[in-house]
């Protein structure tokens, strides 16, 4: 009788410990919170050789706005539209976010192509985002794929833009691309 009670107690103790440990682990997991700390961006924009008059950098150089021209039937090159630099060894990629006006808009056919090229300091091209038109529709790229950027290295983003022959003046398009960093 006493042995049976002891056995019961041992079994109950083991089960109890398991239940309490598992419950505590779940509660702790639910309690766990994410802490976000503001830090300096490890990759940021810099003015390039052709940035004068076309580039506006945002606060902390983490945002860049380019105001580019396009000429009909001529490809205009901005060899160093904007530069990218890093304060640590990272990997970066260019990624398409949005384009406006979008597919189906009559003004789209005024453009032929917009190309963003990611180029290393030695001139090696490491990624390309190519936007082309087909009638009133855009053919958008997705992303370039990650490429390494070393601490202190400066990459440049070259932009090639071409409007269609006979394009109307004053027509504009807004392209938003992101620089992903990992």
């Amino acid at each position: 009788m006493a042995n049976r009670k002891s056995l019961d107690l041992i079994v109950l103790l083991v089960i109890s410990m398991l239940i309490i440990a598992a419950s505590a682990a779940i509660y702790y997991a639910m309690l766990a919170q994410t802490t976000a700390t503001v830090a300096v961006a490890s990759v940021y924009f810099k003015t390039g050789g052709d940035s004068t008059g076309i580039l506006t950098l945002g606060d902390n150089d983490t945002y860049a706005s380019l105001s580019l021209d396009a000429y009909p039937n001529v490809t205009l090159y901005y060899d160093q539209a904007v530069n990218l630099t890093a304060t640590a060894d990272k990997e970066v990629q260019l990624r398409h976010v949005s384009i406006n006006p979008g597919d189906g808009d009559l003004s789209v056919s005024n453009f032929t192509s917009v190309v963003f090229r990611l180029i290393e300091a030695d001139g090696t091209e490491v990624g390309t985002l190519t936007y082309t038109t087909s009638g009133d529709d855009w053919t958008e790229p997705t992303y370039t794929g990650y490429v390494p950027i070393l601490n202190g290295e400066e990459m440049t983003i070259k932009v090639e833009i071409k409007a269609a022959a006979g394009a109307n003046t004053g027509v504009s398009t807004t392209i938003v691309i992101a620089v992903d960093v990992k």
Partner: protein
Amino acid sequence: MLKLATELLPEFFLFLGIDFFVALSLLTCLMGQFRRTVPYLYEAAAVFGYVNMLMSREFLSIFGEYMRFSYCFLYLALALANIVGINVYLLVSKKLWGLAKIFASSVTFPTILISAFFFSLYGGDTSHVLTALLLSSAMVLGVGIAFLVGPEKVKNWLGRR
């Protein structure tokens, strides 16, 4: 002013309820006044609480805080009701006044006090702490009166009924 390092989640009451059921399971096994299945039933109730906690975590984004608090508090209330029930069983059915007195002072009273304390903390208002203190004072008073009346008088009273 009392301030917790981390806020209590509603699931804390679930955790507290699980602990109480586990404690009940071990106590009922040790006391020997109950059937052999009773401790295992309390253990099953603790497992049920654990499953509740798992579900609460999985559906955290779907269940609102009010709903989470409702079922967690209900579970804790069930655990407390069982503790009080055991106390009443020892006193009324088994007529074990001494054991019931010990159980009341070492289990029933502390568990209710702890529950009231954490409930007031969950409210986040110091007035709730005051409420909990008043509640505990009232309970101490009740236990004190029971001691003053004496076991014999209570036994007689129970016998008359």
